[in-house]
């Protein structure tokens, strides 16, 4: 602080000697500097935009986009507006991040456990998998997988995966379910199963607290959540049919095509993040001391119950905070899809829309706002969950 050096006039104790006063002055100067710089930037930007004849504001969102996107979850054509293109990008981002998080978590937990295996060979293979994947840039891995998919045979010579799925350089074509009206009963049964499990769990806890009797909640829960929809499906006579892709001319028709961009991005994202999650999982499990397991055994808990009630809850407490940042990283990294033409939010709004309208400030700000919102939501949820499982101390 420059003001710190100011001498006390006349040798008296001056206001400059008061750290609170100095703090106020310093913050005042800081605010003035920020305002000056900001107004300078805003003025320049307005001037530059006016010179280049570029509009400002978000009016462009309601104009016709005029470009196609490669892959969309909702109906979209080039006659739709920029706002709709933005929505397409947003949904694509959420879709690939959501799927990626699930895949990466599963893969990461498996590799993390393998990394702890007493079997030397398995241990080493997992170790080198993690090290190789972690130390090669994600973008390179995305390109690598994309190149691999593009090197697949053309659609006519598709690889036949079990007669219903076909893999070619146009992507993975899978059968699409065509549902009958009564299909709604199956998701309904699924929801009922979840509600019933929650209720049973509550009842079982109360009963255990009162009588000490243990109720097998887990098998019952699985039975209800999985079994109920299956029973309903069988009762309603399997109310859907599969639309199997058929080769017509040069390409397959029917079914759903999952483009090579999506497959490559999803593979790279989930493998890359899985390697980081594996290390978190390993650290978390190692952090539970062996004494805890021994104490649980001494109390007479079975192996499964020891894991479920003693080891995993304590390990999760260590695993969850870094897991949150891995999920956030995966979501932010999904923006790399722009490099292989996966139409996610950066590619649509900060890519093509920006190029067409020239409204750089608005377009980049929109993309940033999307990621900030997602980041805040994920970290809010994870903080809630973290508090939920945190150690309750005296």
């Amino acid at each position: 602080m420059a003001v710190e050096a100011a001498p006390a006039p006349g040798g008296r104790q001056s206001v400059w000697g008061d750290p609170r006063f100095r703090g106020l002055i310093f913050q005042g100067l800081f605010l003035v500097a920020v305002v000056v710089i900001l107004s300078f930037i805003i003025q320049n930007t307005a001037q530059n935009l006016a010179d280049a004849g570029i509009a400002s504001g978000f009016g462009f969102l309601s104009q016709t986009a005029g470009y196609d996107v490669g892959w969309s979850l909702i109906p979209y054509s080039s006659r739709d507006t920029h706002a709709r293109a933005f929505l397409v990008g947003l949904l694509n981002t959420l879709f690939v991040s959501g799927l990626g998080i699930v895949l990466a978590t599963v893969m990461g937990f498996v590799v993390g456990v393998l990394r702890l295996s007493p079997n030397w060979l398995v241990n080493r293979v997992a170790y080198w998998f993690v090290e190789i994947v972690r130390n090669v840039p994600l973008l390179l891995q995305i390109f690598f997988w994309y190149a691999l998919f593009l090197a697949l045979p053309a659609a006519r010579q598709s690889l036949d995966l079990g007669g219903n799925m076909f893999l070619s350089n146009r992507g993975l074509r899978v059968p699409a379910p065509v549902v009958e009206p009564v299909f709604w009963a199956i998701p309904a049964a699924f929801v009922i199963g979840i509600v019933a499990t929650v209720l049973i769990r509550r009842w079982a806890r109360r009963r255990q607290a009162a009588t000490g009797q243990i109720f097998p909640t887990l098998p019952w829960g699985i039975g209800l959540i999985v079994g109920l929809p299956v029973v309903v499906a069988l009762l309603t006579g399997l109310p859907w049919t599969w639309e199997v892709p058929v080769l017509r001319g040069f390409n397959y028709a029917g079914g759903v095509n999952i483009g090579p961009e999506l497959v490559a991005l999803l593979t790279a994202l989930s493998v890359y993040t899985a390697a980081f999650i594996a290390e978190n999982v390993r650290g978390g499990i190692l952090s539970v001391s062996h004494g805890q397991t021994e104490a649980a055994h001494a109390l007479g808990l079975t192996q499964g119950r020891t894991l479920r009630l003693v080891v995993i809850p304590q390990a999760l407490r260590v695993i969850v905070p870094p897991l949150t940042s891995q999920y956030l990283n995966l979501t932010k990294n999904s923006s790399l899809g722009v490099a292989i033409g996966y139409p996610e939010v950066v590619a649509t709004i900060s890519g093509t829309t920006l190029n067409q309208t020239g409204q750089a400030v608005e377009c980049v700000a929109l993309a940033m706002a999307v990621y900030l919102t997602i980041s805040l939501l994920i970290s809010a949820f994870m903080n809630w969950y973290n508090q939920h499982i945190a150690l309750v101390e005296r």
Partner: protein
Amino acid sequence: MSMTEAALNPVDPGYPPGRHPDLPPPSMTVGPVGWLRKNLFSSIGNTLLTVATLYLLWLVVPPVLDWAIFDANFGATSKAECVLPGACWAVVEVRFDQFMYGFYDAGQTWRVNLAGILLIVAVAPLLFDKVPYRRHLVWFSLVYPFIAFWLLVGGLGLEYEPTSKWGGLLVTIVSGVVGIGASLPIGILLALGRRSKLPVLRMACIGFIEFVRGVPLITILFMSSVMLPLFLPEGVTFDKFLRALIGVALFASAYMAEVVRGGLQAIPKGQYEAAMALGLGYWRAMYLIILPQALRIVIPGIVNTFIGLFKDTTLLLIIGIFDLLGIARAAVSDANWLGLHTETYVFVGLIFFICCFGMSRYSLYLEKKLRVGHRR
């Protein structure tokens, strides 16, 4: 019966109780056999796992080795000369200079090499304790950025090489080193600001850190490449590479700030109070007491941030700067080398792997060394 025979025969009653010499352990529990039994075949499940893994390795490793080494084409000069079924490394061999220097003048590449060698000289005393003449070399580390700038850009008797001609590993290393060099001081200031008692300053730092950490690097790069020129008065222009470097440095400093904050939080309050009791002002207390301790704790975290940053420099290719991966992309889209994606990407991946793996090993070495330092 001789003495040795008696020693080998356990039932020989010629020893008084308790005086029998030690016998070698059973051969099944020591040596390679014992190791195999313990680590690979300790139970039925383990044996099955071992066999399954071996089978998997058998499926994957020999074809990969065949492709990369035994059936590969070395020394070819064009794609047509690649007759063996394996990899065609010619694409890497022919374009090797481009992978290293980009489009830097071929006659001037010695400057890049010299800057690279001097970089090692400048960085070594910062990384390792046992470098000879360490105290003197640190001074060299301080002037190195200016020397490197002069060598790479030119001027003062050297031919001018605009950054638009730079590429390959040169760009990757320059952006990594500049990113870390700029982000460390900025990150320290941000971390101090975040823990400051002045609310305006604290809020500004928290806002900046959380904003940058909440958005992907690519949007920051878009901002620096598309929006930064708009922010400046008419006629003032910036080098494109410099703009990207500013973006990278700002991005890295937000992450660095969080790493440093971890170190600051780990310093016991007594240290702050002791510094105050000695009559040290804020900056002196930080510079002399707190930061030396805090930074020492977080060196591994700093190295990890650097690894992340080094990998993230590949994103520069999205805004049209030819880093190592950008050059690789250009190489695979060259009509003469079509279809040689795998070779190129494997080569580039190998370079990144060696750099990043080396750095993570260094970080582990540091962690071990620092742990020893805390022992009394």
